[in-house]
């Protein structure tokens, strides 16, 4: 069984086509999850062996010592997640956020990104009124003018951009040293027992990503692709296009490089950050056991 | 004119082929103590329910003091066959309940309740609850509740059915005193022929299938009691005994002819 979320990326195409099944020669149960913490719970229960989630839930899970390995990066989040301030909220620079209401879904990558940007701006997070809202409620609250800013993803992002302006986006935050990713994890015992399955899984994914990276315009122009993604995620076709454009997808070469020191560092940073926020009790001494590029490498 | 009257009333319960009452007329005047006597299921309770306003006739009318009766009202107090006391109130509060509804002050209504409880020979039951009483005690609380109210009519469904002979006679005398002093019209159902004879100014004999009034008597013994004769004396008067035996024979005769009573 494999857990996926409704992130928008090219690997949804082989998923829709049944290419994963063909390549691995086994039956795959695809299950959709709402949030990273639920994926973690499912993976922990043993019912799910491979799962898709954001990097900050991963940091939380790894800090709790869950036996999982990150073997593939779906994308690096770019402009698909952004901090938008509402027109009329009188926020023009980061310092204006003080005392304002900023909504994020807690424990999501945007939560991390928001806090990271506040740190970058040297704004005291305790002086900003950070509220926990799910994307659908963010849209509703935004409409009423109950919140002044929000850090979310599409389609809520698209809706609120219409009456606001982007203060920063994850592409920016990434440059400030706090990148966020959508990644795939695998249970360690499963990876040890069936490495070839994980290899094949990585290969199919990488091929799909390569197909997109090679010519994004053509990919998007192909209505068939968009429809498949739309059907799997429930997103409107227009939102699919935005989603694809808003993220940076990494080729095999990039991934091999990333899934070593840099990514371990990113996870460690995230975890340390969560700890400083009092969200995590203790840190692991070393996060490298939770990251491996061997499967991406083997996917040749 | 100021009487409680049923005029050609017919009542048919849902799903029954034969009416429970058919074309019954009865008039309870200001000075009347009307007693209904008749076999089980002949419609006595149904007639009382009509007077009380609990049941509406299918045809015919019920009126009180010239006004049609459309529902229950404080001027017509009822003593139920099965007490219908309020279990969350103690006996005293149950008896005072009618006065409380009328807005009588607490001290006054409780004093009145205690007085009436003495009358029904339950002077010390005031603090109890109805489920702590015996059958006959409950019945007397029900009577006390009706007596404590200032109704103009008393409708009583076998009020003394669960009482021993002595208490019963006490209650009969009490009832006659109330009738005489307060001038209330009274409609009473009983199965006790002696009681019916002793109390009634007007005695109606009813018969089932369909329920109707077959005979009306005016025994007149209650007037003698009112005039000062003692209850014992009246009940052992040979005239009384003769009438009792005669009535008994009538009732038995009526019943010996096989008549179906149930539809």
């Amino acid at each position: 069984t494999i857990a996926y979320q409704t992130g928008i990326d090219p690997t949804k195409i082989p998923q829709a086509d049944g290419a994963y099944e063909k390549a691995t020669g086994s039956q795959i149960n695809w299950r959709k999850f709402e949030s990273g913490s639920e994926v973690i719970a499912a993976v922990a229960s043993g019912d799910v062996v491979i799962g898709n989630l954001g990097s900050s839930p991963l940091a939380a899970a790894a800090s709790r010592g869950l036996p999982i390995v990150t073997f593939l990066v779906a994308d690096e989040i770019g402009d698909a997640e952004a901090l938008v301030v509402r027109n009329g909220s009188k926020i023009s620079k980061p310092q204006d956020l003080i005392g304002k209401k900023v909504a994020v879904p807690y424990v999501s990558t945007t939560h991390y990104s928001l806090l990271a940007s506040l740190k970058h701006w040297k704004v005291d997070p305790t002086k900003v009124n950070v509220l926990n809202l799910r994307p659908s409620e963010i849209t509703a609250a935004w409409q009423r003018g109950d919140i002044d800013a929000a850090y979310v993803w599409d389609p809520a992002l698209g809706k609120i951009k219409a009456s606001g302006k982007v203060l920063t986006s994850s592409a920016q935050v990434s440059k400030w040293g706090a990148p966020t990713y959508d990644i795939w994890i695998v249970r360690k015992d499963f990876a040890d027992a069936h490495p070839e399955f994980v290899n094949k899984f990585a290969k199919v994914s990488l091929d799909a990503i390569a197909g997109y990276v090679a010519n994004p315009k053509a990919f998007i122009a192909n209505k068939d692709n968009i429809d498949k993604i739309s059907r799997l995620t429930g997103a409107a076709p227009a939102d699919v296009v935005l989603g694809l454009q808003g993220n940076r997808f990494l080729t095999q070469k990039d991934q091999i490089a990333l899934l070593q020191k840099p990514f371990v560092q990113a996870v460690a940073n995230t975890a340390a950050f969560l700890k400083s926020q009092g969200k995590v009790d203790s840190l692991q001494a070393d996060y490298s056991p939770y990251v491996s590029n061997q499967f991406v490498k083997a996917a040749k | 004119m100021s009487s409680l009257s049923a005029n050609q009333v017919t009542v048919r319960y849902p799903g029954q082929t034969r009416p429970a009452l058919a074309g019954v007329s009865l008039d309870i005047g200001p000075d009347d103590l009307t007693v209904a006597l008749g076999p089980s299921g002949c419609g006595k309770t149904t007639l009382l329910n009509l007077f009380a306003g609990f049941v509406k006739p299918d045809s015919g009318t019920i009126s009180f003091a010239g006004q049609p009766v459309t529902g229950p009202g404080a001027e017509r107090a009822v003593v139920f066959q099965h007490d219908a006391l309020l279990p969350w109130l103690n006996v005293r509060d149950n008896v005072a309940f009618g006065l409380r509804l009328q807005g009588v002050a607490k001290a006054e209504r409780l004093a009145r309740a205690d007085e009436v409880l003495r009358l029904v020979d339950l002077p010390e039951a005031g603090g109890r609850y109805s489920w702590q009483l015996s059958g006959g005690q409950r019945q007397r609380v029900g009577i006390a509740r009706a007596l404590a109210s200032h109704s103009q009519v008393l409708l009583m469904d076998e009020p003394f059915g669960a009482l021993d002979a002595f208490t019963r006679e006490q209650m009969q005398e009490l009832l006659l005193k109330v009738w005489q002093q307060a001038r209330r019209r009274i409609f009473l159902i009983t199965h006790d022929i002696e009681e019916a004879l002793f109390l009634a100014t007007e005695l109606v004999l009813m018969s089932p299938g369909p329920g109707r009034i077959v005979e009306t008597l005016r025994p007149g013994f209650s007037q003698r009691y009112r005039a000062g004769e003692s209850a014992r004396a009246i009940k052992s008067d040979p005239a009384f005994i003769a009438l009792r035996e005669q009535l008994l024979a009538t009732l038995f005769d009526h019943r010996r002819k096989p008549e179906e009573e149930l539809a």
Partner: protein
Amino acid sequence: MNTLETSLEQRLVAAAPKGVPDEIEAEAAALSPSVWAQYRRGWLSGISLLGLLALWWGLSHSGIVPPLFLPSPEAVLAKLITVSTQGFMDATLWQHLAASLQRIVLALAGAVLLGIPLGVLMGVSPVARGLLDPLIEAYRPVPPLAYLPLIVIWFGIGELSKVLLIFLAVLAPVIIATSHGVAQVSRNRLRAAQTLGASRSQLLWFVILPEALPEILTGIRIGLGTGWSTLVAAELVAATRGLGFMVQSAAQFLVTDVVILGIAVIAVIAFALELGLRLLQRRLAPWHGQLD
């Protein structure tokens, strides 16, 4: 709530109806004296639902509420057609409905099969009551969303977890109502049956259960309501089909018309089940509400 009870007005005023029923219908009529009253009530209910619809229509067309949050009835109707033919999230409306219904029915069956015996036990034995009461009172108030992760960890992400969650929501009201109903059985009727030689189990089957039946059915009805309302929570767990799943996925992508459609379908189906249960209640306990 309960179409069975004669209304206060009926009880206050009169017992004798106007019409004279046919002799053949006599017996049946004796059991349902208020057919007319019910007919009139159905009519009133129609009015109030129409009123709700009109309010919705008015609100959505007035522009006070943007269509993103309250799509118009027409839009939802149109969506009904597309979702039921082309589907949403890889399944048609009917497939979603079937998946959810199956879960609800399984959970309900489980709750009834376990809850009634437990409730009877608690109503009958103070020991059982002493032991079980704190357990039920302890789990009952806990929000399903709070123990969702625990359920997933312990029972996985299969159907079991989803059904279990709904089951737990239905179970408590069934147990509570059953034990309440059982504990209120008339003492005199119990005694009467005992003096006729009823064994403990006969007492249960022939006196306690028939007398508690209306209350048990009320408990099932309340339980079914809470069951439906945990549907979304249950289908947060790795569902691929189901009305709750559909609503939740649609909400994530702000496809509000599908959300409202899902809500409406849940309301309609739950209402239909509720009416069915009431009918059952009326068939099984026609005597209910007839006593003084």
